[in-house]
């Protein structure tokens, strides 16, 4: 075998290795989604989306309360965590050399590693006990602790990619540092920051443990901040460990809806971001 063929063979070998790895990564994702679709799609009905659960023994009923609850809790958690996280990440990236910043970074990393059940216990002690009851507020705060470190670190990493010479160009125009940071560094990378936010939100939407004994769950549609609130993951958990076949089937459908809800949030945000850009372009050209 001459050198040329040998080189081609090596190239082919490593190239296939990469392709195989890519496929291996996709297989579990595909299996999970396919199995959930297979088990859950048969339970889809208008009832499921528009009705609350029926009492044990009665057929039908749905999870509208859990779907609404998940949206409510995730929105509440994001409302608390996203502004703090973006500001915090900006601070770490732009002014992150001091002692405070270094300890903050360590704290954020530790928070990422805290098991979600521990976050649930924390919110339980912090909110549920003083308020004497499970509440959406406690659930929202627990989810915000999941979202916060992800948003902070993704924002920091994104803004660190902004080259020094871009910041200097802003400063050289006679702009104060905060204007350079806000209008040029942060605003110029809003789309990438929002991608990190969406990632964090998707993660929080699927969390069960922090909600088990904070938002707890109920069986009707609720918008009360200080009352228990249902959520898809907890509902799925409760139904899947129940002895009733129809509840287990509903848990599968719930899982199916949860996956596509997260996918939906993802896609909506992305298209919305893109559309905004397109709209801006169109209106500016007039």
């Amino acid at each position, binding site marked *: 075998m001459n050198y040329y063929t040998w080189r081609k063979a090596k190239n082919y070998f490593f190239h296939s290795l990469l392709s195989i790895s890519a496929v291996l990564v996709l297989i579990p994702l595909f299996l999970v989604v396919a199995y959930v679709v297979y088990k859950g799609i048969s339970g889809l009905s208008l009832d499921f989306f528009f009705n609350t659960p029926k009492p044990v023994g009665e057929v039908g009923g749905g999870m509208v309360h859990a779907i609404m609850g998940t949206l409510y809790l995730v929105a509440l958690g994001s409302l608390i965590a996203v502004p703090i996280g973006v500001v915090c990440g900006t601070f770490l990236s732009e002014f992150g*050399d001091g002692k405070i910043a270094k300890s903050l970074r360590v704290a954020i990393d530790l928070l990422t590693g805290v098991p979600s059940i521990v976050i649930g216990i924390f919110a339980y002690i912090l909110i549920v006990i003083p308020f004497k009851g499970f509440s959406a507020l406690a659930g929202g705060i627990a989810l915000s602790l999941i979202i916060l470190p992800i948003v902070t670190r993704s924002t920091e990493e994104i803004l660190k990619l902004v*080259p*020094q*010479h*871009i*910041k*200097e*160009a*802003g*400063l*050289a*125009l*006679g*702009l*104060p540092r905060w*204007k350079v940071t806000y*209008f*040029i560094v942060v*605003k*110029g*990378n809003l789309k990438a920051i929002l991608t990190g936010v969406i990632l964090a939100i998707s993660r929080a939407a699927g969390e069960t443990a922090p909600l088990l004994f904070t938002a707890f769950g109920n069986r009707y549609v609720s918008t009360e901040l200080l009352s228990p609130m249902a959520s898809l993951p907890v509902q799925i958990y409760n139904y899947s460990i129940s002895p009733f076949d129809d509840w287990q089937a509903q848990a599968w459908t719930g899982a199916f809806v949860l996956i596509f809800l997260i996918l939906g949030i993802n896609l909506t945000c992305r298209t919305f971001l893109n559309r905004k850009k397109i709209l801006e*372009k169109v209106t*500016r*050209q007039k």
Partner: protein
Amino acid sequence: MSQPIISVKDLHIWYNDFHAIKGISIDYLPNTINAIIGPSGCGKSTFVRTLNRIHEEVPGARAQGSIMYMGKNILSSEVDPVDLRRQIGMVFQKPNPFPSMSIFENTVIGLKLQGEKNKSKLMEVAETCLKKAALWDEVKDKLNKPGTSLSGGQQQRLCIARSLAVNPPVLLMDEPTSALDPIATGKIEELMTELKKEYTVIIVTHNMQQAARIADYTSFFILGELIEHGLSSDIFTNPKQKTTEDYITGRFG
């Protein structure tokens, strides 16, 4: 002879322990082009970056001595670097338009963020500055395209327009044409001679022909020291120092 607009006296600059500029004194006259030449690492960039205090962005950098501008030592703590940089603008080596902004936004961003909201005023400034930067004809039909969609030379002229929009009497240029081809370089040189009517330009360059072509005065730096400063015609035809002669004739550096 008119009063100097910037007067540097006994300027020393350190990066931590490294003594980068060792006691340089130069006067700059208004409406002139002043070139700084010298081998790499001689402190040219450090020197101009101190003139609008952008050197403070480098951790560990500190300056000593005096740089008089409008009757004040700009190195003193009572001068606000933000105000100073509105007076003394800067164009960098690498064209660096803001990537998320259109050509129009890039041009007026300085003014806009200083509080100018009137759209027709901004449009007017954009047109004037892009014309001064000899870019208007090339971009007037695509002002909403991203600044980064332009060619390297166009981007650099956009950056010059961006600096001009805040109307600084002095413009610092740190090797503005080193990343550009000869045609783009030619355009920017032409532009500089045009700008001289209204502005004072201080330009760092590695290109000695460039200094000879456009600069009224040239300073020659080696290892943080000023070897020679004078009329470009003297420096390039009749240098007083042997080192200068060796450098410009290519015997070293």
